[in-house]
């Protein structure tokens, strides 16, 4: 493979502690190496440019059944954004729910190399893998959802922890999944009857267990299994005024818990799109930001990580395994509603949404997402996301960065809101003069996320030995003054090296790369009880046979990358 020497760039790498120093980065045989290891490298002149490891997205909805519902039921989402194929590029289109090709290209153009699909219904794992297989460039993995799974609910209710662990191990292997995702624990099962669990103590109908027990039990199982990522939570009561109390209650469930793994992960729980979970007030009339209370807690408890879920003030398509929430949303905005309840496992809903700058609540939501980041004391634990496409499309990350790095830019946005004064009154944003640095941005978009995923030995830094995933941005931190340059530069990477190969050059896709699909194989002791239970459930309640459930690695995955964990001790 080719050798590259990226010379004289301003390097930002929180893992190595490099904060804008000029340095050369060497890549050989797909990996980062010391520059002395190169013999005849191609030189990339990065003078006056910013150099970081490629981005790692911990949470986005980019592949699978609900994403494809979003594409197929919104032809209007393709207006004015279709691109013809060119060179190695396939045709691409779609705004809030881009086609798989456009997803790969847009992420690569932002300098991202790894993206995790945040919710995979196990019965639809094959579909999720088919879409990931067709998504170019990006290394990907998918989190199967566990929080409403009948096996999990029954085992946890009976306090059969070994059985929970054996079942998780089986499901991760069978679906080629990466981590334990929990969405509206218990509430989505309740949705099977049109009901919900609005607090973490509401019992789940029939199963007689609470969301708190589900989350705590899955966290214990996750640590016993020593998985690379922690449990990944979207707690109950999303999107409702006053829900910050539910969020804090969820956080507190894990107090004192310690991580147990060999992957360098330091948290026992990742809470996703916290913006949607940080509302005070008791109605839409008096909803207000509680980012302060949320971040006070996060800052003082280092066994958790979180991502933002920033609202970007776009028209978008919401989609989540929180089935009852999507019904609530369609009742609110009266736009079209798709829902799919999945036997024994989960549900999902999809509803278009317009985050209008003319609506007060949307402005408040926009502000809260930014406040969470600006109040964060440890950027290695607080990550930039938009919960794509729920709060906005992922290709707005550079715009979010602009707002976070420039008070002037966010004040300009604030001023353009129709209800700017009311938004100011209900939020803290205008009082925050912090401007994040590129060093902090690098932590929030690559170093921190790679560590939280247990992938710090592959991604997130420019340390020799890691994957040759390097992004170069045409942004000079010493001279750039206009915040618009941030958005422009980080939307159009000058270079992206993926696995040691140039895939983006001058903002243009020049290769489809050689993507990997990551999954976790956790070995546990043989468990005849769980084997028997699986066989029985498939015979009696599933509509596919047990033998037809497993995802065939050879057919459905591109370059499968198995991460082995031994939890048999």
């Amino acid at each position, binding site marked *: 493979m080719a050798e590259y020497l990226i010379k004289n760039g301003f390097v930002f790498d929180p893992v190595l502690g490099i904060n804008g120093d000029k340095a050369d980065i060497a890549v050989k045989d797909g990996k980062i190496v010391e520059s002395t290891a190169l013999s005849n490298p191609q030189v990339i002149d990065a003078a006056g440019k910013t150099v970081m490891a490629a981005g790692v997205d911990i949470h986005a909805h980019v592949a699978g059944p609900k994403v494809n519902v979003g594409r197929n*039921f919104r032809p209007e989402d*393709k207006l004015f954004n279709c691109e013809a194929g060119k060179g190695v590029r396939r045709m691409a289109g779609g705004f809030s729910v881009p086609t798989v090709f456009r997803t790969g290209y847009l992420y690569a153009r932002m300098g991202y190399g790894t993206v995790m699909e945040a919710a995979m219904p196990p019965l639809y794992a*094959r579909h999720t893998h088919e879409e990931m297989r067709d998504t170019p460039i990006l290394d990907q993995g998918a989190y199967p959802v566990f929080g409403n799974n009948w096996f999990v609910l029954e085992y946890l209710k009976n306090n059969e922890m070994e059985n929970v662990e054996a079942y998780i191990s089986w499901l991760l292997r069978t679906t080629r999944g990466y981590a334990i995702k929990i969405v509206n624990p218990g509430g989505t099962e309740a949705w099977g009857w049109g009901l919900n669990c609005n607090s973490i103590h509401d019992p789940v109908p029939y199963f007689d267990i609470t969301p708190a027990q589900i989350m705590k039990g899955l966290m214990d199982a996750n640590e016993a299994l020593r998985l690379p990522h922690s449990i990944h939570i979207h707690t109950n009561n999303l999107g409702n005024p006053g829900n910050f109390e539910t969020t804090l209650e969820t956080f507190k469930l894990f107090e004192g818990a310690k991580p147990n793994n060999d992957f360098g992960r330091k948290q026992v729980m990742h809470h996703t799109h916290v913006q949607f979970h940080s509302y005070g007030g008791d109605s839409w009339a008096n909803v207000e930001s509680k980012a302060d209370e949320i971040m006070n807690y996060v800052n003082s408890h280092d066994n958790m990580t979180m991502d933002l879920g920033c609202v970007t003030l776009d028209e978008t398509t919401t989609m989540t395994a929180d089935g009852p929430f999507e019904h609530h949303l369609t009742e609110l905005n009266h736009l079209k*509603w798709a829902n799919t*309840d*999945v036997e024994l496992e989960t549900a999902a809903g999809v509803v278009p949404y317009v985050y209008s700058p003319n609506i007060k609540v949307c402005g408040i939501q926009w502000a809260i997402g930014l406040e969470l980041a600006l109040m964060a004391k440890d950027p290695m634990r607080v990550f930039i996301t938009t919960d794509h496409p729920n709060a906005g499309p992922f290709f707005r990350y550079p715009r979010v960065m602009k707002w976070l790095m420039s008070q002037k830019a966010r004040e300009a946005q604030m001023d353009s809101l129709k209800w700017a004064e009311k938004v100011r009154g209900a939020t803290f944003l205008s009082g925050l003069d912090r401007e994040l640095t590129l060093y902090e941005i690098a932590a929030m978009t690559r170093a921190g996320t790679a560590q939280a995923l247990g992938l710090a030995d592959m991604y997130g830094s420019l340390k020799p030995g890691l994957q040759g995933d390097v992004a170069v941005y045409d942004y000079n931190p010493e001279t750039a003054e206009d915040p618009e340059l941030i958005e422009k530069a980080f939307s159009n990477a000058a270079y992206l090296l993926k696995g040691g190969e140039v895939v983006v050059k001058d903002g243009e896709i020049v290769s489809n790369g050689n993507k990997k699909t990551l999954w976790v194989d956790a070995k546990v002791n043989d468990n005849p009880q769980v084997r028997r239970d699986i066989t029985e459930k498939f015979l*009696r*309640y599933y509509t596919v*046979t047990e033998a037809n459930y497993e995802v065939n690695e050879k057919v459905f995955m591109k370059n499968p990358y198995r991460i082995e964990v031994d939890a048999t001790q």
Partner: protein
Amino acid sequence: MTKIVTDVVCPFCGTLCDDLEVKVSDDGTQILEVYNACVIGTEKFLHSQAKDRLKVPQMQDEEGNWKDVSIDDAVDYTAQMLCNAKKPLMYGWSSTNCEAQSTGNEIAEIVGAVVDNTATVCHGTTLIAVQDVGVPSCTLGEVKNRADRIVFWGCNPAHAHPRHMSRYSIFPRGFFTGKGHKARKMVVVDPRSTDTAKMADVHMQIEQGRDYELLSALRVAVRGAPLPETVAGIPRETIQDVAETLKSGRFVVIFFGMGVTQTLSKNHNIDMAISLTRDLNEYTKAAIMPMRGHYNVTGSGQVLGWQFGFPFCVDLSRGFARYNPGDSSSNDLLRRGEVDAVFVLGSDPGAHFPISSVKKIAQLPSVCVDPHHTPTSAVCKLHMPVAFVGVEEAGCAYRMDNVPIETRKVVEAPEGMVSDEEFLKMVLTRVKEIKGVA
């Protein structure tokens, strides 16, 4: 010694039953028996064993005489035809696997074709309605485990989806439905007294083509508002009773078929049916599901969706994906004379399109890829016989509830025969050569 292959997936209808067992000969070439399948599914497996099966591509000359050609010639003719055409139509895709669909889509992209599947003449109206109002739905296991109110509207599963009622909807005992059909209420809406209708608790024998009115009336009745004495030939009291039956259920499912998608009002019927389902969610849990016909028509919509963003009628001829049913749909293009070559794989428009469309196909350079000689091959210039997907070739297919299942290979195809995907890959390679694409 014979052997039994288990967990076989049936490549016939959208029910995609995956519990078949097939007895094959020791050498893996002969299917001897098929267990658990319905009569149609059984026939599909056994038919692959027909002694007079086509194995060699054939071309038709201007006088209508057929002569055998090599696979290489067939590949070249197909590639040249697609590359020479300004706007070829690549139609079908519903009786093949997603891998073949994906390869076909890539060819279509390079040659600037219109890709359309059989939804264009069956549930395309449903897909349009979903774009209007969405679709609250569920998997078939939810129906089995929870549903106690089942509506079949304009469909006849007893004949068209023969195992649907026994596997999923009426008879099975699920987790919360331990009494099976005894605790389910079954409503059928159909102008005909079908075998499905005869089994129903209530058969609303609607006047032909009046579905929109009856669906509207049910929405009115669900809200408890006044109704005229009869609607669509159904007495007010019956409508009110049915509305009450649905509202009092714990989990309602409406299944609907071409009796309502292809009658007057088309997608507007489905808009109304989906809206009724939405309304019912105010009172209980309700879902709706189209009774998809071909075993992988759903898959074609999915693959087109993630690759181009639209589920059918995708026009790639301008270099980017366009979608406009009524304009970019197969019959409209054919009847307006807007396409100049036709490629058919995995369906039979010769049997199902209007004669005016079929005549157009007969006048154009055309290819039919199908294991059988069909009415479509009769009007095409080239017939390319291939292996049976789901019998002689594995690959992914999507059930009517969008659940993907990997079909299984049960027997070897006759020697020298290629699969849909293999044929398309050869065409793709040739197309790239002709177009000079890397």
